[in-house]
């Protein structure tokens, strides 16, 4: 059979190679390995255990790289990082029970951010399912609300069909995580293997090509618009539609606002780029979203962190919403012109229809003036390092070309504000779920996805401590991942909200005791350094980023720095505070 390499272990059935017309008989575990090969999976993140022993036996020396993370949560975040920078499904394996439940946070994260993941979990043998057997848990029941779909395999003969469907579902339509639960005995069952049939999914037919009448409505609406703006979300990245977005925005001179997750879809150094919108977005972006009369949403889901109070979001605009998931259209914001389909296909069609260029130069000039007058800002004073300047310096030294992975919190917002992403797929962050602990393992996965790029993990001192066991992977394999700890001695965003909204009562948010991060890194075989003053920032950072191999830089920053501008919860995006010093 083509593509099937020499088995590495005894097969219970050996079919002579002449018998090509008969499907080869394979054990369940070998089928899984064969399927992963056919899907061109080059790396798996996982952690073995009792129920996946047969699967790990089949993986042994099978030629597919397996990265042993030190916790299953690390494995799934790594798979997410890999998927985000490659556009291909990340594959993760965990055992039954605690192995499977440790995936839960990552599944929920991937579900909210539409990251394609195929998660394989072991399960106790079919004969003891439901008996509270050792390490038994109903991961199907647990994961149903946080996966795009899930499967429990009841016989090895189902494996090819289920995996074919799983890879298809994970990476088509609105992408997302798919979990496959495999009872231990299934892995040993023998069945015929074929993998040629296309998936048969009558209940799953995503609309890729938008309806041309809807596109015509968009274009005739645009011709009338006086104050158009494009809101570009991660759908642009999933559709690999950056070029079309640039062409469309330039043709009609429409300003572009990005969501947090969309960053990189439109070049940040472009004249028409207004920055990120939303709670910590730019003044120009939020002004555009508030005052627009024609909002073209390309693959964003009108998340509450973007819209602020819904009454004040684009109150006078005709809303165009292009989304491959019809359920997103009209979910949060009433939509005037719904367009169901792939953002790239929609943009191609929009580019093929020529309409008279709307006269909106006054609007564009007004926004560009606001952009020039109210950039993201910080005030450099005293010797302490300002976290914003740290990010800006990383951007300068890496020339905006690094793969930037963040954790969640203040440093994440500063990275979004001050790192100018000029190209897609170089920005990995946990948006919808806001998963602290995401950054370090996701950076490992991003490195495997783009091994030739410089991967910089920008993490907070608190989130880093949630998954720091993955330092072992970086140390063991000497991965050239640069870890920058933005250390403000606090759960910074929690501290900021307590300062602003809870009367400065810093309830459990100040980390008055911390480990020695340098000793910690060195314990894992990772060179580490620390900087504490602004004077040494540029020089030390340059040396740190230029050094080969892994590295950890602890950066002591101004502990009271807050993220501004800010749209306070419950207010509209036009009610920003802190737009300038």
């Amino acid at each position, binding site marked *: 059979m083509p593509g099937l390499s020499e088995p590495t272990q005894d097969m219970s059935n050996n079919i002579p190679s002449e018998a090509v017309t008969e499907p080869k008989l394979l054990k369940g575990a070998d089928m899984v390995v064969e399927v992963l090969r056919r899907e061109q999976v080059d790396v798996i993140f996982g952690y073995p255990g009792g129920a996946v022993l047969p699967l790990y036996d089949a993986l042994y020396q099978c030629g597919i790289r397996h990265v042993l993370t030190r916790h299953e949560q690390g494995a799934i975040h790594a798979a997410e990082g890999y998927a985000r920078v490659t556009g291909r499904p990340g594959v993760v394996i965990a055992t039954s029970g605690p192995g499977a439940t440790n995936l839960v946070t990552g599944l929920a994260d991937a579900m909210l951010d539409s990251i394609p993941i195929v998660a394989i979990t072991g399960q106790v043998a079919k004969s003891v399912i439901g008996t509270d057997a050792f390490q038994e848990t109903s991961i*199907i*029941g647990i994961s*149903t*609300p946080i996966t*795009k*779909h899930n499967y*429990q395999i009841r016989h090895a003969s189902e494996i090819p069909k289920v995996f074919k469907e799983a890879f298809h*579902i994970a990476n088509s339509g609105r992408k997302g995580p798919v979990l496959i639960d495999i009872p231990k005995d299934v892995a040993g069952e023998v069945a015929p293997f074929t993998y040629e049939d296309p998936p048969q*999914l*009558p*209940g*799953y037919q995503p609309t890729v090509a938008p309806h041309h009448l809807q596109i015509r409505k968009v274009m005739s609406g645009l011709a009338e618009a006086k104050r158009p703006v494009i809101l570009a979300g991660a759908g642009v990245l999933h559709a690999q539609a950056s070029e079309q977005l640039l062409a469309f925005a330039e043709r009609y001179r429409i300003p572009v606002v990005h969501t947090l997750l969309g960053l990189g879809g439109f070049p940040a150094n472009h004249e028409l780029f207004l920055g990120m919108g939303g709670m910590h977005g730019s003044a120009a972006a939020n002004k555009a979203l508030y005052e627009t009369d024609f909002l073209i949403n390309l693959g964003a889901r009108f998340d509450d962190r973007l819209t602020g109070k819904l009454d004040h979001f684009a109150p006078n605009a005709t809303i165009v919403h292009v989304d491959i*998931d*019809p*359920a997103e259209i*009209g*979910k949060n914001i*009433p939509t005037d012109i719904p367009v169901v389909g792939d953002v790239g296909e929609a943009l191609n069609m929009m580019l093929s229809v020529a309409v008279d260029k709307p006269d909106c130069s006054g609007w564009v000039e007004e926004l560009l003036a606001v952009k020039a007058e109210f950039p993201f800002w910080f005030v450099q004073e005293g010797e302490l390092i300002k976290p914003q300047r740290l990010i800006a310096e990383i951007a300068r030294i890496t020339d905006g070309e690094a793969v930037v992975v963040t954790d969640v919190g203040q440093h994440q917002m500063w990275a979004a504000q001050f790192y100018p992403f000029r190209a897609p797929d170089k920005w990995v962050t946990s948006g919808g779920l806001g998963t602290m602990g995401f950054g370090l393992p996701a950076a490992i996965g991003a490195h495997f996805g783009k091994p030739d790029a410089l991967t910089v993990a920008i993490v907070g001192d608190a989130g880093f401590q949630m998954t720091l066991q993955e330092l072992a992977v970086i140390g063991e394999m000497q991965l050239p991942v640069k870890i920058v700890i933005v250390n403000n001695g606090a759960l910074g965003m929690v501290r900021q909200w307590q300062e602003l909204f809870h009367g400065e009562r810093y309830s459990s948010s100040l980390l008055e005791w911390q480990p020695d991060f340098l000793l910690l890194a060195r314990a894992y075989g990772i060179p580490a350094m620390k900087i504490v003053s602004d004077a040494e920032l540029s020089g030390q950072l340059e040396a740190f980023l230029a050094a080969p191999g892994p590295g950890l830089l602890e950066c002591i920053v101004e502990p009271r720095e807050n993220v501004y501008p800010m749209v306070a919860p419950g207010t509209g995006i036009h009610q920003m505070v802190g737009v300038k010093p």
Partner: protein
Amino acid sequence: MSPVLSVLVHNKPGVLHRITALFMRKGFNIQSLTVGITESPDVSRMTLVMSEMDEAALEQVMKQLHKQIDVLKVTDLTEEPMVARELVLIQVNSPVQQRSIIHALIEPFRANIIDVARDTVTIQVTGDTNKVEALIALLRPYGIRELARTGLTALPRDSVLGSDARRVSEGQVLPI
């Protein structure tokens, strides 16, 4: 009026859980839910009666149901010509001297007595919601001991839609 949805789903384990988990996750409330196999053994029909909701919320319910990979078809029957019935079993106090009154009372409803005990009878009635609720209200003064309702199940009216037309449209959705 409470929306009535007819949902065709794959007849396989876990599908009911997916639907109910979806409703819990999204905060949708249902009044009743019936499930049973259809003319095709691979397909089940769920009939959902939703709590009252506005149009946008109902649209979101239908879209979320559509998103489920095991959901083949979602039809809103609320405004469509449909036949809708539920079955109710009512165990009501019925000493011998009252029994003929009970008989007379249920007769116009074409309800039947399907079990008789010393002090009670069990009545079976089928019909639309208005009819069965009217009968329940009439019986209540006699003392209802126990009551079981199946919830509504429904089909679009064939005579109005045209059987050929519907078969074609379902055939496009269901290659079974």
